[in-house]
């Protein structure tokens, strides 16, 4: 037995745990959460075993396919369900299970007072299983199973407190926005199937590389895949759901809406590299979408006063970086994944920090009522601070190693493309880093520094300064935060040592020769650090040194637009929802009057005939016999007529 044959356990264990937790019901209330933690941890152990196995092999042998069962066999179409274990999928497995396990642990304490904690863990396990199916699938179809599975888990968890109508609406919004993306994936699969007759990665890669698919078709497939990625990863123009998704419990935001699920779009693009390689136009659009989202997210992040929504905007923006990198082609893939991993750590850490703050502040999320929490929540402050430094890209923290590489790659002129692209995307990425520094510092200072905009004495409490008793969270919550903070601190440095991570990914992303950017690397690095420094200083001046008003000032036009997510809901409503509702109403009317009318008429006619025919069923045996005789005569005529 080889280690790789353990791979199915990765999915099976969390799935079984979820099933047990859901089926046993209340009987599992007392110990259910520990089963959930255990299942996630077990998956991590299996992932670690697989890692050692893969590291012990030559780079060329690091792609292992594990056959599970023959799934669909219809005519010429023969699809087996199988898992593909390669450096890319294993990276995700380790990220999902490691961060996932920490967040499970955190949730044990965070959800301690929730009556439905067992159900929460069941959903979390379900999510882990679905996410692992998504990344381990060896075909688009199985990937789609996982893709829908994480969508379901996300829906269930966003609406976990669905007794609040707005939370339920948020869950629905996320689901619908994701459906739009899912249609992209379905259409992409349909196109691939029509062109190649298969959906597994191996045949798709072979088919595309053999030139069996025209460039135009590849562009169409690529755009559809991009649509899918936009839905799942909250990229422009399907980004509107992510902010609302913060309605879910904070561990969910950390795990699903920061570290793992929302990055599935990046995974999809990197996994579909052969398709995008054959479609430069699609690639360019990917880059543009990434660039737009990274700026858009950053701007929105500057105006949000809700700590979780600010982090959500930041997630959107950071994934924009990853998508941008993925759009750059082979030189960007590895860095996209690299940033994805480091981001998974520091963003999850900051979300857990935000959760810890909320825990200590009576579930408030409004940063205008925070301030000066450094002293009362030291561990949270320190871990959040490390995450903050990491996302800023301050050397030597994690984010520096990954984000800087993306900015450098953005400055490279792609082969056979105009030089302006390097300048545009490079400068956008660089400016984005500056804005990131501004809004993350704003968040950090508003929460932990400055003057307290709350009070712990009953006498002074007012609407302006609500009564709060901030306190550090229990160790079950702080330990995961500390572990993730260690990741924020050193993971980037460790992984980049000797180009280790990019080499590790090479069996999937391919080997790339070094390309020279349009500016020299030190210049880019210094410019980036300068932008970060400017952002930091501006934030300190406004939110660290000066007092922060407890009610938001009116702000400029841009600020007001950013507060309402750049009017994306308004646009969606006007462009999609209203016409959609109108169309639905007309269709319903048409269905009632025309389609139903025809059918009711037909039905009435049939029933009328039935009423007549049933008279024949009089109950008299003599009449029945006569019917038979009549039938006999008629049939005899039918048979004999041609002969006469």
């Amino acid at each position, binding site marked *: 037995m080889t280690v790789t044959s353990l791979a199915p356990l990765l999915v099976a264990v969390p799935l079984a745990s979820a099933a047990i937790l859901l089926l046993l019901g209340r009987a599992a209330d007392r110990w259910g959460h520990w089963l959930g933690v255990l299942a996630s941890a077990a998956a991590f152990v299996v992932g670690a075993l697989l890692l050692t196995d893969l590291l012990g092999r030559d780079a060329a042998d690091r792609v292992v396919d594990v056959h599970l069962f023959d799934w669909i066999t219809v005519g010429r179409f023969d699809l087996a369900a199988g898992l593909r274990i390669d450096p890319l999928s294993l990276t995700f497995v380790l990220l999902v299970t490691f961060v996932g396990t920490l967040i499970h642990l955190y949730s044990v304490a965070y959800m301690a007072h929730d009556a439905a904690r067992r159900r929460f863990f069941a959903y979390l396990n379900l999510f882990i299983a679905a996410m692992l199916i998504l990344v381990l699938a060896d075909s688009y179809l199985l990937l789609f199973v996982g893709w829908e599975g994480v969508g379901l888990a996300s829906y269930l968890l966003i609406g976990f407190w669905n007794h609040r109508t707005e939370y339920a609406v948020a869950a629905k919004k996320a689901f619908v926005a994701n459906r739009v993306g899912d249609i992209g994936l379905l259409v992409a699969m349909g196109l691939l199937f029509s062109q190649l007759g298969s959906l597994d990665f191996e045949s798709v890669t072979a088919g595309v590389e053999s030139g069996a698919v025209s460039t135009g078709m590849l562009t169409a497939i690529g755009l559809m895949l991009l649509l899918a990625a936009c839905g799942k990863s909250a990229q422009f123009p399907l980004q509107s759901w992510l902010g609302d998704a913060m309605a879910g419990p904070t561990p969910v935001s950390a795990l699903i809406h920061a570290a793992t699920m929302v990055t599935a779009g990046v995974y999809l693009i990197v996994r579909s590299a052969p398709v995008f390689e054959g479609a430069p136009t699609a690639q360019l659009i990917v880059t543009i979408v990434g660039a737009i989202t990274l700026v858009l997210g950053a701007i929105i992040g500057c105006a949000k006063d809700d700590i979780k929504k600010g982090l959500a905007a930041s997630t959107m923006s950071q994934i924009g970086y990853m998508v941008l990198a993925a759009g750059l082609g082979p030189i960007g893939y590895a860095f996209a994944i690299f940033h994805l991993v480091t981001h998974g750590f520091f963003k999850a850490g900051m979300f857990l920090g935000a959760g810890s703050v909320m825990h200590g502040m009576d579930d408030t999320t409004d940063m205008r009522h925070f301030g000066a929490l450094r002293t009362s929540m030291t561990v949270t402050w320190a871990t959040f601070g490390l995450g903050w430094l990491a996302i800023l890209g301050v050397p030597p923290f994690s984010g520096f190693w990954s984000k800087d590489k993306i900015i450098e790659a953005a400055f490279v002129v792609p082969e056979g493309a105009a030089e302006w692209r390097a300048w545009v995307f490079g400068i956008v990425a660089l400016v984005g880093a500056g804005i990131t520094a501004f809004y993350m510092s704003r968040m950090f200072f508003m929460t932990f520094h400055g003057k307290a905009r709350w009070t712990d004495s009953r006498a002074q409490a007012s609407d302006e300064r609500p009564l709060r008793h901030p306190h550090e969270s229990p160790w079950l919550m702080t330990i995961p935060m500390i572990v993730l903070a260690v990741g924020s601190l050193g993971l980037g440095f460790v992984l980049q040592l000797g180009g280790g991570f990019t080499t590790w990914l090479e069996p999937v992303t391919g080997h790339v020769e070094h390309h020279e950017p349009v500016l020299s690397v030190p210049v880019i690095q210094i410019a980036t650090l300068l932008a970060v420094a400017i952002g930091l200083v501006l934030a300190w001046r406004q939110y660290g040194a000066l007092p922060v008003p407890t009610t938001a000032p009116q702000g400029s036009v841009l600020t007001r637009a950013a507060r309402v997510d750049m009017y994306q809901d308004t646009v969606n409503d006007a462009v999609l929802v209203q016409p959609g509702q109108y169309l639905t109403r007309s269709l319903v009317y048409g269905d009632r009057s025309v389609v139903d009318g025809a059918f009711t008429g037909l039905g009435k006619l*049939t*029933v009328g005939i*039935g*009423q007549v025919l049933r008279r024949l069923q009089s109950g008299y*045996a003599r*009449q*029945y016999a006569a019917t038979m005789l009549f039938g006999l005569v008629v*049939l005899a005529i039918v048979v004999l007529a041609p002969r006469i």
Partner: protein
Amino acid sequence: MIFNAPDIAWAQLTPVLFPLGAAVIGVLVEAFAPRAARRPTQLALSLLALLGSIVSVGLLWPDVRDTGGTEVLGGSMLVDGPTLVLQAVIALLALLAVLIAADRTSTGEDAFAPQAASVPGSGYEESARRAGLQQTEVFPLMLFATGGMMIFPATGDLLTLFVALEVLSLPLYLLTGMARRRRLLSQEASMKYFLLGAFASALLLFGIVLLYGYSGSLRYSDIAAAVTTTTGMDGLLLVGALLVLIGLLFKVGAVPFHSWTPDVYQGAPTPITGFMAACTKVAAFGALLRVFYTVLPGMRWDLEPMMWTVAIATMVVGTVIALVQTDVKRVLAYSSIAHAGFVLTGVIALAQSGITAVLFYLLAYGAATVGAFGIVSLVRERATAEVPEAARASLGVAVAAGVLPAGSDTTTGADPVDDADAPVLGEATDLSQWAGLGRTHPVLATTFALFLLSFAGIPLTAGFTGKFAVFSAAVDGGAWPLALIGVLASAAAAFFYVRLIVLMFFTSPQGGPLSDADADATTRPRTVVVVSQGYAVAAIAVCAVLTVLLGVLPGPVLDAIAEVAVFLP
């Protein structure tokens, strides 16, 4: 005249010998065993015999698959692939039907009259009921019928065909008249069935005579040979073939020879209805398949217009009349007529795939039928303590037959809604009584819905696979208009199946007079579900599992049937 005793291959006959032998022993048990021991003995005997049949089919299977089958009894019976499939299906369905018939439920009474010979409503009947008498002859009768059914599709000549027909029919006539409740209805049904059955038998016999006159032989292979060689006597041949086919079409309940079906299905004890509807139809279609595929293919062009007419009429009439029925047993009866039409499309196909398709369809249909009637037998009505005269009149025969024990008239005073001691009557067959069953008995209603969905041919149920198979066979055989009408009829038929589901799950018991505008729901006897002793539930569960399994994973069964679906010439 020298009589040569044929060489009998006993081993090939074991599937048939088991039920017939057990039936003979059963008769002896009735004669000699003490009363208390009869029921368990008969039940065990029947179940063992039918299991034995199934096992012996399994033992014969490999040999038949490899050799294509053999003639036995000097060619009177043909043991080939279709024979074995049909015998296995009949034995299995009969086994399930026996289980349902054996169930005495929580009321302690089975579906059969305590003394079938007693006059309905007489004091003798009442005292027999009180003495707890049981008509355990039911079991040997069912076994005799099963034996006949298993011979019916295996015959090699027309005389054996006729004998088998009578062996299977006569016990059924008797069984039909043995209902415990609504006995007049039951006896009337029995009488009608007998009269019309005799009529059909006469037609069949006359047809046999004409075919004998034409070919000089009763053997299928000889007649088939004669069809291609003899000239000049086409009249004899055509009319003979027509009459034989009509005899068989009567048994499958095809229009216009269907009139008996609704009355008999309604009147017969419900377990027997299930048994008839499933097993008789399997056997009769088996025989029809054999005759059509081995005897008459040479006359295909002459007979096709007639068969088309019958198939179309059957599908359309069965579906259309089912739409206006208000009695659940009659709905199922008309649905069985419509199904006969669907199967006929597969028979007419005269394509190799047609045999497999029909055999599979019969299994799928039989499983759902036995299960559905099993459930009907559990859903009963309970007399309200204060039954107004009008409602009592609507109970009609049941009351007249003295089912309500003396003194039940005086159990007044209690609030009718709380009166759980009121006697449980016969089946609640009026559709309005099924309203809201999904809420009060979700498992039962869901299972019934499953069978209905299978009847309707909804994917993932056995019915879908069966319909798909016969319709594609029809298209293969060039009969696409039949397939088209079949599909349209299925779509229309789905209406009344779904209506029943809607009634069970989405209508409150008081909600809207769906069928009888004149019957007030509050004075109507209330619906109760009696608790099975376990036999019926086991049988229904097996049917449900079969229905799902054949719908989800039909492959192995279809392949197994296709492997052997070749008739001996």
